[in-house]
């Protein structure tokens, strides 16, 4: 399957590049629908990898790349389901999203996240699973999870620890503050900063450059450069599930979802 058109995302393989476009209003929240379509992408990768050399994620929405996990769906699931079943659902969701992220992380393709605007929580974790992040000047990054009484749950902390200095990781995760692209490049999260609206064009150009190299060598280099912290990733799922079992999380989610405050993202 060289192309796919879904409700949350679409992809197309052309000239050796799989271009994955996120397009789920309001801001590409990652819930069960998006997860299901990401799983379809992950399942299609082995056959796509036969002809592709790169994969580029981008968003069609003006608001940005992704606001992260779908907190409204999550809250509804917790609110309307018996606690034990709700926790089982949360565990299942996290195991599935980890499988997708790990598949992207381990893919022999070079993966590029072309981001702009909001790159929060699970959206940032998706970008972190990619090999290269190219951001335009409007990009703003954040791990807001601690504000809700949880930690990033889509592989964020193990991948942050792999890629960045621990002091920076502590600052970003423990304060939950958002930061701009200048800071993101300064700490080594973003490798290329481009003008507004140019991240996809530059990602395509970068993917074009990668096509000149021997694919086997590129895949070998990636594997050597980018070890996958599987033990910590498994540990993360356990920590997240333990945290979700606390009533404080449901209270925080309720407050967020039901908030009419003009600044729900700035608690």
């Amino acid at each position, binding site marked *: 399957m060289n192309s796919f058109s879904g409700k949350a995302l679409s992809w197309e393989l052309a000239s050796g590049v799989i271009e994955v476009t996120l397009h789920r209003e309001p801001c590409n929240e990652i819930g069960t629908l998006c997860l299901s379509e990401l799983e379809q992408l992950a399942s299609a990768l082995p056959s796509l990898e036969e002809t592709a050399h790169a994969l580029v994620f981008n968003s069609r929405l003006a608001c940005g790349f992704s606001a992260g996990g779908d907190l409204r769906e999550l809250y509804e699931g917790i609110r309307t389901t018996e606690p034990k079943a709700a926790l089982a659902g949360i565990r299942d969701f996290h195991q599935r999203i980890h499988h997708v992220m790990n598949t992207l992380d381990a893919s022999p393709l070079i993966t590029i996240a072309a981001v702009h605007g*909001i790159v929060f929580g699970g959206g940032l974790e998706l970008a972190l699973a990619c090999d290269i992040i190219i951001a335009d000047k409007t990009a703003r990054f954040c791990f807001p999870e601690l504000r809700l009484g949880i930690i990033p749950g889509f592989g964020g902390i193990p991948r942050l620890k792999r890629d960045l200095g621990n002091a920076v990781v502590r600052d970003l995760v423990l*304060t939950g503050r958002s930061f701009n692209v200048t*800071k993101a490049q300064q700490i080594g999260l973003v490798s290329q900063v481009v003008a507004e609206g140019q991240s996809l064009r530059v990602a395509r150009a970068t993917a074009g450059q990668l096509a000149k190299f021997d694919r086997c060598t590129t895949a070998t280099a990636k594997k050597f450069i980018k070890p996958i912290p599987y033990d910590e990733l498994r540990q993360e799922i356990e920590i997240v599930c333990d945290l979700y079992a606390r009533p404080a999380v449901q209270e925080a989610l309720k407050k967020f979802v039901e908030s009419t405050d003009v*600044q729900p993202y700035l608690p």
Partner: protein
Amino acid sequence: MRTEQQTIDEILDLAAAQFKVPRANLSADDDFFKKLGIDSLQALSLLTRLEQHFNVELPDYELQGVSDFRTLAERIQARL
């Protein structure tokens, strides 16, 4: 070193341009959420532009409860 009034003027110029609001309609004590008609995510995009323009880093928790241009200018001024 900018004066606080200069900082306010530059913020108003940037906000007017970004959200396509007549500059003359904006003043220092306006509630920018109401006057610009923006939500929290749009406020973050304004914050990004302000950080780049003034070359400062402004953690969003410092803006908790801030909704007028004058106080916003004070927070920026404190980091110049």
